[in-house]
């Protein structure tokens, strides 16, 4: 199954290659490294939303390697680039699902893909033979509860829902309580999207976090930030603010099937030391795969220096 998903990732990203970087492969038909090569490299990195700071660091590293190892061909440079990028990403550690139940709180800015990702995660864990309970604690956005309810129905998973404009903390409390009494193994709680600059909404999220801890010692065991891969430099600010507010333990990169490359993942990994656990590759239940740094890097390089 993992094989299958990976293949899907790659075909998904093939579309990107066609549409975006067709031009580059023509330029890199030339195999000698020239000034133009470096310029294209910079364009590639920046256009992947890797950010200026990281791009500069990567370029410097590659200059080093070029002169010390005497690289002359773009294919060699490509290999060096690949290693450099890969070294900047950690393989996500295995998930610790030992707590019974393990409570996962899902957070993020508006429209990043939280609710859809929860449905996908529900299926993912269920396919691993786990029992799963969903908590619909986005009582704010119009029909957010209905949205998760529909997914739960499709998946045939139990769900605890809040009333419109109800207290999201209460929903997460009830969900955890219910999971304890039913002996359920994994609880996934959906929260309303919020911009990290909204103080009151971030406070509300902190409260949801605290209340979860009251329902069960140590909960939430994991707090995952769902990020939209099309996001630019703001991603780092988002991740920093959410991490500060609710101790985010990992990131899920949704919408990687879009034409965007999700390059902000590098800065987030480096500066905030947050593992990236999953990649979202579409709107369907199967469109989730454990984050694979190799595939991710490959999708950024794609046409470079081949």
């Amino acid at each position, binding site marked *: 199954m993992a094989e299958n998903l990976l293949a899907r990732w790659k075909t998904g990203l093939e*579309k*990107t290659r066609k*549409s*975006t970087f067709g031009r580059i492969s023509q330029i890199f038909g030339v195999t000698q490294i020239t000034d133009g090569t470096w310029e294209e490299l910079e*364009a590639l990195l*920046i*256009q*992947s*939303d890797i*950010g*200026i700071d990281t791009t500069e660091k990567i370029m410097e590293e590659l200059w080093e390697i070029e002169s010390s190892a005497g690289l002359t061909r773009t294919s060699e440079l490509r290999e060096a680039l690949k290693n450099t990028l890969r070294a900047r990403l950690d393989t996500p550690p295995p998930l610790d699902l030992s707590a019974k139940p393990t409570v996962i709180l899902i957070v993020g*800015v*508006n*429209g*990043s*893909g939280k609710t859809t990702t929860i449905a996908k995660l529900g299926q993912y864990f269920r396919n691993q033979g786990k029992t799963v309970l969903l908590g619909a604690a986005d009582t*704010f*956005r*119009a*029909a*957010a509860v*209905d*949205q998760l*309810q*529909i*997914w739960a129905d499709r998946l045939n998973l139990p769900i605890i829902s809040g009333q419109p404009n109800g207290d999201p903390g209460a929903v997460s409390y009830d969900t955890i309580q219910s999971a304890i009494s039913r002996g359920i193994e994994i609880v996934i709680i959906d929260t309303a999207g919020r*911009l*990290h*600059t*909204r*103080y*009151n909404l971030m*406070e509300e999220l902190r409260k949801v976090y605290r209340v979860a801890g009251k329902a069960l010692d140590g909960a939430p065991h994991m707090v995952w930030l769902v990020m*939209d891969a*099309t*996001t*630019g*430099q*703001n*991603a780092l*600010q*988002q991740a920093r603010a959410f991490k500060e507010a609710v101790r985010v333990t990992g990131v899920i990169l949704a*919408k990687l*099937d*879009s*034409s*965007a*490359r999700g*390059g*902000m993942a590098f800065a987030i990994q480096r500066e905030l030391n947050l593992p990236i656990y999953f990649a979202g590759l579409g*709107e369907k239940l199967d469109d989730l795969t454990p984050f694979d740094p190799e595939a991710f890097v490959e999708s950024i390089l794609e046409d470079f220096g081949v």
Partner: protein
Amino acid sequence: MFETLTEKLNKVFTDIGRRGKLSEADVDAAMREVRLALLEADVNYGVVKDFVSRVRERSVGHEVSRALNPAQQVIKIVNEELIQTLGEPAPLNLSGPKPRLIMLVGLQGSGKTTAAGKIGRLLRSKGERVMLVAADPYRPAAITQLQTLGNRLDIPVHTEAGVLPPKLAEDAMAKAEKGGFTVVILDTAGRSQLDEALMNELGAITTRVKPAEILLVVDAMIGQEAVNIARGFRDAVEITGLVLTKMDGDSRGGAAISIRSVTGVPIKLLGTGEGLDALETYDPGRLASRILGMGDMIGLIERAEAQFDQATAQKQAERLMKGEFTLEDFATQLKQLRKMGPLSQILEMLPGGMGQMARTVNPRDAEKQLKKTEAIINSMTLLERRNPKVLNASRKRRVALGSGTDVQDVNRLLKQYRDAQRMFKQLKKSGPRGLPKLFG
């Protein structure tokens, strides 16, 4: 960030002094900084390249003016170019036979459905008879979401189970015409420009109905791909305008430049919150400063101006310069500050660095502190406000009791007041030059 761009440019120009013209080397160095600033703001790489070459052309050989230093001149040119690229704001096009159709398209989660509600609310308030159409049969509860918004606004929502969007749009227009509606707003499903089938669906809709507006709804946080996304949508349908959403965050919004460069269509509206009233018109100057990282200073100043009582301010300023600033003036100022809106929002509008810093202040604490100060001053007699020196121990106790604070709080306020007074006196001595430079 604006400060840092200014500072960086100042550094670049330290040794040019006033030798007449900006040389090519000077400009090259300056352009490197401009380029970085724009890339940091998410303006697309290629778009930045074109932009910078335009600015360079205008800058080389530019006469060094007396009024502005070279850094300021370059910034002025950058700002002018930015404003020009962003273009003039344009109203929604409501010409043509009724009902006029407004169609919303964009990536997944960009804010289309919310924008449909917001635009419906706006146009209804202008006397239009509005109908919303739920043409997203794919995403779970997308229809219910629009229906909920419609209910909240008391605007009817057209839905048809099992009917695909092109036919649904046609049905809705027929129904709207019969029902005497003047505006129809079509909410479509989010889609990627790479998804051929769904992009063709947009084309299919526009062969059946003729929208007066096709608005591309874009998340202001979007990065470099904005260019290709805009191209994809532009190729599928004839985009007529842009809506930038989630402008209430702290993204710089440079994608606006990218998309404008590709599509050339005007930016029509900005989404500034989740509430249905959080829709604003767009101002190119304000967006340009935001992209340069200057923060929404214009918005802040406008807010202050709107709440500002000119006559009172004048009187206060005069007394202030005479060293006669009283606690009463202080209370009036606090009231004016509070009228500008919740402190948290005001803090968020400050430029880059300051806004960041402000965010670490708990606005609820600050708000509480303000309230306390107000309560204390309100508990004073007129005499005490005008001449705080009369506040002896027993008067202080009375004031503390009356304001629900304690004597320590009263003392703290009096100390702040004395410090402020001392500062003003010093200012007076050193003249206007001593005034701290707020926006440089």
